[in-house]
């Protein structure tokens, strides 16, 4: 393995294209190129190839190329359910995350600089806590014997525990919390154009606070909203840890299916085909994003 890493880039140094690059640059790029080749280019190429390979049970790969994995995927009603579940999760979670993160971002934009730095760190600090830990926290909070059910029961609002985990609701709640920092970061990055002067101008022309929000603040912050929504959508439909743990094996999504197919059923060609489908959805989301952004520029 070591020899492959060392020789592959230097072999390509013989090609005319690479000759125009100074030797010192080639030397500086080689280690990074080797990592990229072994852990990114080769794996992605192999993933694409294996998605077209005929599968046998037990992880045995044949040499026969076929479209069967894709045909199987689209003719199976379960796969259609997986796609609709994932898309629904993506849309609902993105919208809910936007609604939760927008006030936070607006607050951070307006609060005095002394508080802003502190609260900014607080807002992004969950990113540094393992998603397994945060999901475990939600299991504690939302479980049948959990904190939320305990509070609701002792307050007399409910008599028996409400089911908040091991279903879609639990996954939605956990996902929104996991994604708020990403959304808040994108929104803050896009809030640069939001100047108090515009609001003052609108107010002096007689606009009330709702009109000011709808006609001034919202349009100015649209680029940040679009970026945050794209980011959260792609993270939501590809997330695995939170749906797996909070879904309790009862929530079926594309991401959980990839893992089950690959690690439990050892159906690598099917898993590879499902992965390619996820990447296609990614591409579509990105295309939609660039259209939206063009309109606001």
């Amino acid at each position, binding site marked *: 393995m070591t020899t492959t890493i060392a020789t592959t880039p230097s072999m390509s140094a013989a090609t005319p294209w690479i000759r125009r690059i100074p030797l010192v640059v080639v030397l*500086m790029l080689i280690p990074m190129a080797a990592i990229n080749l072994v852990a990114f280019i080769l794996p992605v190429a192999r993933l694409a190839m294996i998605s077209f390979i005929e599968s046998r049970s037990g992880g045995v790969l044949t040499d026969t190329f076929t479209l069967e994995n894709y045909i199987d995927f689209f003719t199976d009603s379960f796969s259609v359910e997986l796609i609709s579940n994932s898309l629904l999760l993506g849309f609902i979670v993105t919208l809910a995350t936007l609604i939760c993160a927008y006030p936070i971002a607006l*607050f951070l934009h*307006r609060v005095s600089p002394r508080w802003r730095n502190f609260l900014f*760190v*607080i807002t992004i600090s969950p990113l*540094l806590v393992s998603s397994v830990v945060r999901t475990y926290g939600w299991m504690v909070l939302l479980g049948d014997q959990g904190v939320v059910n305990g509070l609701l029961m002792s307050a007399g609002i409910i008599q028996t525990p409400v089911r908040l985990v091991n279903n879609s609701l639990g996954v939605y709640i956990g996902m929104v919390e996991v994604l708020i920092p990403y959304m808040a970061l994108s929104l803050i990055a896009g809030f640069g154009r939001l100047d108090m002067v515009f609001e003052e101008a609108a107010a002096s022309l007689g606009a009330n606070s709702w009109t000011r929000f709808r006609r001034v603040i919202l349009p100015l912050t649209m680029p940040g909203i679009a970026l945050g929504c794209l980011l959260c959508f792609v993270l939501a439909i*590809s997330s695995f840890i939170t749906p797996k743990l909070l879904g309790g094996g009862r929530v079926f999504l594309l991401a959980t299916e990839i893992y089950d197919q690959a690690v439990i059923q050892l159906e690598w060609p099917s898993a590879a085909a499902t*992965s390619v489908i996820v*990447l296609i959805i*990614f591409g579509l989301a990105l295309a939609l994003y660039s259209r939206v952004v063009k309109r606001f520029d």
Partner: protein
Amino acid sequence: MIGRMSLPFRMLVALLYIFLLAPILIVLPLSFSNDAYLTFPPQSWGLRWYAAMFRHQGLMEALWVSLGVAATVTILGLAAGVPAAFAIRRYEFTGRDFILNLFTAPLLLPSIVLGLAILLVFVQARLLGTYTGLVIAHLIVTTPYVIRIMLTAFSTLPPSVEEAATMLGAPPFTVFRRVTLPLMMPGFVASAALSFLLSFDEVVISLFITGPRMRTLPVEIFDYVESQTDPMTAAVSVVLVVATLLIIFLIERTLGLSKTVGKS
């Protein structure tokens, strides 16, 4: 009056912060539970689960694996990423943008897809469940961040500063030691800290490529959370959160967090 934040708005933001931090804060009291199973609030208090954590052999082995992998990934990631970022920032050459996009592209790929893709290659290369395999897989996660951070760091260092030192008679090594290195330090520290944390926390790709012989700490915790719900995970979580906070605090104290992430 404009831009002044009303009380209901402040309360809404406070509620949202509670929602955001609740799952992290809840594990603290829970970790001091002495109950045999998960109840909240705990019936009895104590350090039982902290003791259990240190006696749990699988967990302790996984901790050492994770620390070792994260340290190796940090060193190798800087060794590969810093020269690459320097070459991209300082030299004009054919395909420079392509190279940069290629090196940062792994960021765009979802971990679940990248994990499967790496599994498919590693199973052939016999790298599944090995230390080398884990290091290579984690490097592809951390190096895009190293390159991004170092690109920013190198662009804040204009060549004229080094030229000035050279003109004043400083030999090349002195220029490097007295000018380049100190100015690069925040970038190095930020890259190293982020690499270590990313590798130490990485779970999705690791789930695909760890075997029964070699498991990382997040994989071990994931399996534990999936199979049983007792307060031990809370104790582990608290230790991890405190360790992370400590690293952040040290960086903030020495360099300023906002400066190192390149955000004002």
